[in-house]
């Protein structure tokens, strides 16, 4: 029987490549950790979901220079403001740490300033997002608690189904992916918002599945081991055996996400970008991070 194959029967020495992979991963993780600290310190492009404040999406009818908009807003008394233009459109995202006070609503103030100083230029407020700072903090805290607890539960499950080492390795690989994606988004200065957190969770799920598939094959192949020192070969063989599955699944997922990335419109762009990059990282980590960790650890333990 003949099959269409993207990979012929391979025998790549993935374990042999572990040191190179570990260097790359360490760099990704360290940078991700740095990004996490910057985010925790509030020095990243965080959405008002977490920081508290007001975010407005304004669409002008005519072309307006971003500098003019900034000076108008600063002149109107809204100094601490971030302005971003949606590329290729007349839409702007205006973000400020100010939240509604009892006396005054930020949205009213902004539209007041805009209609006063941009006379004759019509604009429309497409959307707004006002979050009090306590709500933002609670959201952030809950998200972190949820992620940490789910990680612990996964260690327990995988440790039960496989061994403790496998559980830890799967969790490290998942954290690796989440941190790497965080770092990349920080570097691209993309907004860290609730949708991005969802993307992180999705990727954690995807990466975990990928890792479990490889682990499952290792578990199946362990009884076939010829000697105790044969563990590296067993892992290599297992990864190679499931390699075509790993690639096919990644390709189909990337095809689906890619169409949303390029055609899904601006609301979904950053979200699908996160998923796209995340799938690539998740695929990489299940091959080059999770299993080599198990290998190195087992060698050390023994």
């Amino acid at each position, binding site marked *: 029987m003949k099959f269409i194959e993207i990979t012929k029967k391979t025998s790549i020495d993935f374990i042999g490549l572990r040191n190179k992979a570990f260097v790359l991963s360490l760099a990704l993780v360290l940078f991700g950790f740095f990004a996490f600290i910057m985010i925790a310190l509030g020095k990243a492009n965080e959405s008002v979901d977490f920081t508290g404040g007001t975010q407005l999406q304004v669409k002008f009818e005519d072309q307006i220079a971003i500098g003019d908009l900034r000076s108008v807003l600063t002149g109107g008394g809204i100094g601490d403001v971030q302005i971003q233009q949606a590329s290729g459109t007349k839409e702007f995202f205006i973000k400020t740490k100010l939240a509604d006070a009892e006396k005054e609503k930020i949205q009213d103030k902004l539209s007041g300033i805009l209609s006063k100083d941009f006379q004759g230029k019509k604009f429309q407020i497409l959307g707004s997002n006002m979050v009090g700072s306590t709500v933002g903090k609670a959201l952030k805290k809950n998200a972190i608690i949820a992620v940490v607890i789910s990680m612990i539960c996964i260690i327990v*499950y995988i440790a039960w189904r496989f061994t403790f080492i496998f559980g830890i390795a799967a969790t490290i690989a998942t954290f690796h992916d989440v941190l790497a994606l965080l770092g990349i988004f920080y570097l691209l200065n993309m907004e860290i918002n609730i949708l991005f957190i969802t993307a992180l969770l999705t990727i954690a799920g995807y990466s975990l599945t990928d890792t479990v598939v490889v682990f499952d094959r290792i578990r199946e192949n362990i009884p076939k081991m010829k000697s105790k020192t044969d563990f590296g070969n067993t892992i290599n063989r297992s990864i190679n055996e499931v390699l075509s599955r790993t690639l096919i699944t990644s390709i189909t997922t990337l095809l689906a996400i890619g169409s*949303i990335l390029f055609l899904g*419109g601006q609301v979904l762009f950053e979200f699908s970008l996160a998923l796209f990059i995340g799938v690539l990282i998740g695929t990489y980590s299940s091959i080059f991070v999770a299993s080599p960790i198990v290998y190195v650890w087992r060698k050390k333990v023994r």
Partner: protein
Amino acid sequence: MLKSIKLRVFFIVLFLIISVIYCLPNIIEPTGAWKKYLPSDKIHLGLDLKGGMHLLLELDTAKMLENMVNRKFDALKDGMIRDGIRFLGLDKKEYSLSIIIRAEQKDKLYNLIGKEFPDLKAGAAKIDGENVSVEFFLSEKELSNIKENAVHQALETIRNRIDQFGVSEPVIVRQGENQILVQLPGIKDPQRALELIGRTAQLEFKLVDEENAARYTGGIPPEGDEALTMKTKNKETGISTTTQILLKKQSLLTGELLTDARVKIGGEFGSEPYVAIEFNNEGAKLFDKVTADNVGKRIAIILDDTVYSAPVVKERISGGRASISGSFTMDEAKDLAIVLRAGALPAPVKVVQNITIGPSLGQDSIRKGVQAAILGAIIVIVFMIFYYRYSGIVADIALCLNLLYLLGAFSALQATMTLPGIAGIILTMGMGVDSNVLIFERIREELRLGKTVRAAVDVGYEKAWVTIFDSHITTLITTFVLFIFGTGPIKGFAVTLSIGVIVNLFTAVLGSKTIFDWILTKYKPRSLSI
């Protein structure tokens, strides 16, 4: 799993029919006799897709308790004066009142408190010579009761207001200790809705203090009085001005005694809309008395500490009708009538989160998102057929089954579809494809080992199942934790994903395997297009 193909086909078709029935209302509205028997719930679209307003309101219970302590303080003072209890000291703290009186009047005071203020608990009395100082306070239990009731009342009031404003599918739920979450999908005028919901709407009638008004030039008002702002609009120029007006602090009548409030046009206010209010029996009697006592004087009509008008009482008014005017526009008058009918909030509310998504943004994102998702699905379907040939078609059928079951489950559970929810569906579909890829790759491996088609398919499914089970269960664990600890959008994501994972597991057992078994039993092929 199930041995009999017929039985499995029966289950697949049964669930398919159920799913389709539940999906139907999303496409066509059932009419006539069908309406009775068919489900009619659609999949709700979340605010991020449909546009609308998401509000998180916080009830200022501290302010409410402060007001309550103030009221008790005033009432107690009046009561003591009436009963002839001389107080040497009277002071209010956060949730307590401390009173110093002569020792011999202690019993009298305790009687008064016991009779008229049963919710006040007496602390230890301190005797200082002939004087006694006692502290009265509200117990912890009482305080939490009051707060609890206030949140319930606020929830009810806001629900009433929104119902009367007319919004379809609003979400009004309590969140945490003193927060209320309000979601108004597809709302056209969010600003107006916010004003309607956020207004305390405390209606009061107070006497204008004309005696002191002449001497009062601003600053601290005289004892027993308060100065509030009054807005007046010049009818010709349309410019509104604010003035301070001196009032007796004691309110004569409050909005609690209202039974109805309606917008009217005409009569003494010309073409301007005004709000006609009607009191209940008790209110009507009180209003009758108040107007009878104060003919020739001005009574101010106050809403949330702003004076709307202060007309002169021309004659005693019986029958319990009054009107509120204040140069309203039609919408303003309508909203005022709504808040008066729905009643006042027990405490002021603060907006702590307000997400408004314009309908155009929502629609745009739905259209593009759906187009892109459909295209993505087509690409995946085509790819599967390209790569796995006829088996790819089997996988695609299983995938479509999966999607239909998923939509059916969503409709039946009346889940709300949001952007994170769609992410959950994408991940589910990805996992669905992955299950098939896992199985097919396994079957290929077995075929390469030289097994027969029948054996390869059976072993392939059996071995892949272990992996599929493990990966799905780990995902399910994550989703449960996210559901418990996550808030808002994260919760939505968790719900879609967990439904998806369960449906996936089901189709992985029943879906494509049944089709394979059927083909293999019927045609007994010697080779497999995979």
